[in-house]
């Protein structure tokens, strides 16, 4: 490698090392994260309510899809009653609820594997493959 090549390699390496270390201030990161979450949350709610086939509870699968919200205490009172009534009467759903309860702590601790499952359901190949 001649001197010019060596210098250019050094300049490039220095520039990319600086870019690698480039970071926003932590408080700016937090503020940006909070602002964007508000927008994303609103859009997520709009998108979820705009999907009619997911609005109706017609099967055990539908009830079981409510288990995460039930465990987080996120169901409305009416929905919670309906859910509990069904689970009391339905053995498969009761088993699913029990399994979800048991899985909850390890799943939270496992972090990335829980995220993987969620992300699979959300499906975002197009988001990254652009």
């Amino acid at each position, binding site marked *: 490698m001649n001197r*010019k*090549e060596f*210098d*250019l*390699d050094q*300049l*490039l390496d*220095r*520039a*990319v090392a*600086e*870019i*690698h270390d*480039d*970071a*926003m201030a932590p408080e700016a*990161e937090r503020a*940006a*994260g909070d*602002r*964007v*979450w508000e*927008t*994303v*949350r609103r*859009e*997520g*709610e709009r*998108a*979820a*309510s705009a999907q009619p086939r*997911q*609005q*109706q*509870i017609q099967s055990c699968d539908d009830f079981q899809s409510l288990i*995460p*919200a039930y465990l*987080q205490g*996120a*169901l*409305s009172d009416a*929905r919670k009653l309906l859910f509990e009534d069904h689970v009391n009467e339905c053995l498969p759903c009761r088993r699913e609820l029990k399994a979800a309860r048991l899985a909850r702590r390890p799943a939270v601790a496992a*972090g*990335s594997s*829980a*995220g*993987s499952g*969620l*992300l*699979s*359901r*959300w*499906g*975002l*190949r*197009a*988001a*990254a*493959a*652009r």
Partner: protein
Amino acid sequence: VHNAASQAQTTSATAELEQIYREHHGRVLRAAYRVTGNAQDAEDVLQTVFLRLARREGGSPLSDSPGSYLHRAAINAALDIVRSRQAQRSTPLDDVAPVLAVAADEAPDKRQDAGEIREQVRKALSRLSPKSAEIFALRYFEGFGNHEIARMLGTSRSTINVILHRTRQRLKDEIAAYVGEGQ
């Protein structure tokens, strides 16, 4: 009943979205900042990536690595922003020869200024093919190994090696032109 069910579904979907956001938004924002070098642009990228997710655009099953998947989404969205900035500011660039917005003789005080070269690298990267730019950013900005990048992109390590080598050479040509030692 339908209204209540709809509300429950929405709440559940929001809880899932929030969990994904909480786990991954930091890495998306930081990767976007490294590529764009600008906090506002990084925030725009964060919003773009997660709005796509909130709208459930796409739909194919995800690979087994959601974090690196979102990482790629961040880098590509960030490169898009730098590209659109470049397109607004300059005339179309020759795809073959290294061409810089500011020639060295127009900016003698910028010679070998590390900060300036850093910005030139960001801009030059956005002018390369999207795939080359993504691979270079994953390797050098984000610190992924060649093997991991090959796995993420579903290609071979030797392909990654070749693309990285070419991209480095191309960026060095751009730096050479910028500091006035090229050609």
